């Protein structure tokens, strides 16, 4: 299988000379095409920083990140924009939808700015909206729909251009359990049917149990890694809980 994401000796340090925080400390990992991977860890373990580095929001201190074989740490800022547009999709905890645009415009925004053919974009939006069950609300504004619908809209926005890698930062963080489940099932389905590669940061074991592989982060390093293999979701869920207990972190947060 080709590697969608490859991280080599990634370091990300914050702070001044005398007070360095090693948010990500010499971390390496590989994600193959079509994988659905979760990164778990206590707060402060470096999850979000890692994701920010991969998503080019943050600059790395040292090390390399290859997405689809391309080293993004070497790219200039101008190229990064188009790189993100073509290769990455984002889903955030707080959705980051634009209040001034309708749901359909939110989904289509990147494509329209990309100067794609309007009819084609319309078609694409309808297609993806149908699959995610939000075609009824396409003409509404974000403030008029529910949290779950917003997140599915964000999901549609992330998926529309068939990115090589989808990055999700606590996507279920602001959702109730029913909406969470619906979203995760959708993501799982997208992953299997479209072979979309998904990297998700979460501290919620329930969300993580939908993935094929879970990486545990501690102090900026990979502490453990488990694979779902042929296990049921329930079994996998229990296994995650075991590792979390071992990790001694946020066990209080598990469901």
């Amino acid at each position: 299988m080709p590697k969608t994401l490859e991280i080599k000796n990634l370091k990300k340090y914050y702070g001044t000379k005398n007070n360095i925080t090693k948010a990500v400390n010499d971390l390496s990992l590989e994600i193959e095409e079509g994988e659905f991977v979760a990164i778990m860890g206590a707060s402060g373990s470096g999850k979000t920083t890692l994701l920010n580095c991969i998503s080019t929001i943050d600059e790395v201190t040292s090390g390399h990140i290859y997405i689809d074989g391309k080293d993004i740490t070497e790219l200039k800022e101008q190229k990064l924009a188009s790189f993100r547009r073509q290769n990455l999709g984002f889903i955030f905890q707080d959705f980051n939808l634009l209040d001034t645009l309708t749901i359909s415009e939110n989904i289509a925004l990147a494509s329209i700015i990309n100067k794609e053919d309007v009819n084609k974009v319309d078609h694409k939006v309808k297609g993806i909206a149908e699959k995610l069950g939000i075609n009824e609300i396409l003409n509404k504004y974000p403030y008029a729909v529910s949290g779950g619908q917003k997140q599915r809209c964000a999901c549609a926005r992330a998926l529309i251009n068939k990115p090589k890698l989808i990055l999700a930062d606590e996507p279920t963080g602001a959702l109730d359990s029913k909406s969470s489940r619906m979203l995760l099932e959708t993501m799982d389905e997208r992953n299997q049917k479209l072979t979309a590669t998904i990297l998700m940061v979460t501290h919620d074991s329930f969300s993580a149990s939908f993935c094929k592989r879970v990486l545990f982060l501690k102090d900026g390093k990979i502490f453990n890694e488990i694979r779902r293999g042929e296990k049921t979701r329930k079994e996998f869920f229990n296994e995650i809980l075991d590792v979390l207990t071992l990790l001694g972190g946020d066990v209080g947060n598990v469901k």
Partner: protein
Amino acid sequence: MLSKLALRNVRRSIKDYVIYMVTVMMAFSLIFAFNFVSFSKDILELSEMMENLKYIIIFVSCIIVFVIAWLINYTMKFMFSKRSKEFGTYMLLGIEKKYINRMFLLENIIIGLVSFIISFFVGILLGNVISAIVMQLFDMPYKINLSINLAPVLLSTLYFVLIYLFTLFRSSRRMKKMKIHDLLYLEKKNEEKIWKKRKNRNILFIFFVILGILGLYLCDHAFVISNNPSMLGYLGTSILLLIISIYGITFTLGDFILAFINKRRKIKYRKDNLFVAKNFEAKSRTIGFTLGTLSLLITLTLICMNMSFVMKDAFENNIEQQAPYDMMVEGIYSDVEESWTGKQDNRQKAQEYIDYIHQNYNIVNELQYQLLTTQDNQVAKHVKDIGNNGLYDYDVYLKASDYNTLLEMLGANPIELEEDEYFVTGDKTVQGYLKEISQANDTITINGKPLSLKGTTIKNFRLGWGTGASFLIIIPDNLAKNMQVVTEVYAFDTKEETTEKDNAKLEELGYYEFKDGDSYFAYFPVTVRGYYESSNKTAMTIFSFSLLYVSIIFITVVGTILSIQTLSDSNKNKYQYKLLKKLGVEEKEINKTIRKQITANFLFPTIYPIIISIVTSYSINRLFYAVTSASMNYFTSIMITIGIFTIIYGIYYIATYFTFKNNIED
């Protein structure tokens, strides 16, 4: 798509832009209005000097352009930080910075243009109002004039373009420098702290207070020695010291007050003091520079406005002092070498003027009188520094009947003087000496006859009577014999109002000549009230109006920035106020806390400026003391200034309060 998005954003964020738009509109309405007025034909025709108004307004506008550019830049920065997360999202979606930047600029241009166009129309109306006021000053009828002069429109447009070029350029640069990470997390950033150590700050505070006191002292001193060339040096140093002290004190005062409150548990824990104080603490530390600039602007506003009132009074008073009657022919005759004309006899030439005036005007009242002297200093000995206070260092007499006629011509009540009495009248500058004279209560001897003092007054005295004498001694008519003539004057009250043109016509009749040492000077010793009126009123219009122009624009700028500052807090404070509600604080109490918080924000930058302006207005008043009217008093002028300032400022305060409340209830 880009323009559609920009338009929509404008519509959606109109609530945030409203204060900004109103201020741009107010500022540009004023710029338009004053430019229209300064180019208006009606106004320019009022007097020859009016031409200068144009240049002064252009000069003042240049300063204003800077301040408004700062304001708009500030507002754009605020909007930018408010929407940084949105911009970050755009970038994440892979939209290039170029596009985002273009969109933001487009939004600002739309808002700017809309405000500009509205202010054009408001400016025409406002310009008419100002013109009407000016015309009223000159007692001229005013017709509403909606015709538009091209020059002021072009000038205002130029200012607009300059301001927007500058701010858009700054905004572009800001955007270019931003990393996507900064954008997503900008909300949490503030201005950099300047001083980190608390201890030093208290020492610094005291240091800046001392600098301020020094600055104010130098300012006062500069005005006292106003004739000395080193005055400018003093004034410059004083201004520099005051500016440093304003910034320094704003940086440190907050901590000084808070340290005081923190040490006193009783005050600290009373009611909501803790909440307000801590909120304020966070603020004063992080936006010190902005607050300093606001303080500076408030200081300038108060000083300018105060100056505007003092100037208005000074020029009005100057007309009364210099030209009390419609026409005066002066310097007709003098026996005294030390008089302002020197020894001379111009009766022949003066008669030409007098005849001309008789022929061409309807005379209501007229009086030919002489100022007399024996070169004694029986009264003048009480008046020290007489060289500064008047032209003559000997007693100058005026006959009681002449004095009474002069008073009657002014519409004032005459005095009754017994045969053995004398009376002293003078202007404001010798007020102190007049007191000494009445205390000394000397008996003086004139032509062998002893006279006792009837009294003294500064009421109804006119400098124009004695062409420069700052006090006169009124004596009974029959004693005015065997005296030298200091100067002879002919005063007329005409039925028609005199104008600048009358002055020009008289000028054509030719000049007197008088001797100063060995050289002869040509002089034109006719005072035409209309000429003085128009030149003084012109100067008044120019100075008062430009100063008022500056101060009103400054208030609106300060109001807007404080309002924006406070409202941007309201978004951050939302959570805190919700928490207070949950803790069981009643709605009424919360509103009170909000008011306290806004009051702290609005009041803080005004404290020091008010102190400075009170002190400097005292100094300024001293400088203008001699030329302002007796009724002008520095306390009233500064109170009126602070009053007007408070009204405009209050409007911003109230608008901010209600918007703040709305934001929190949302």
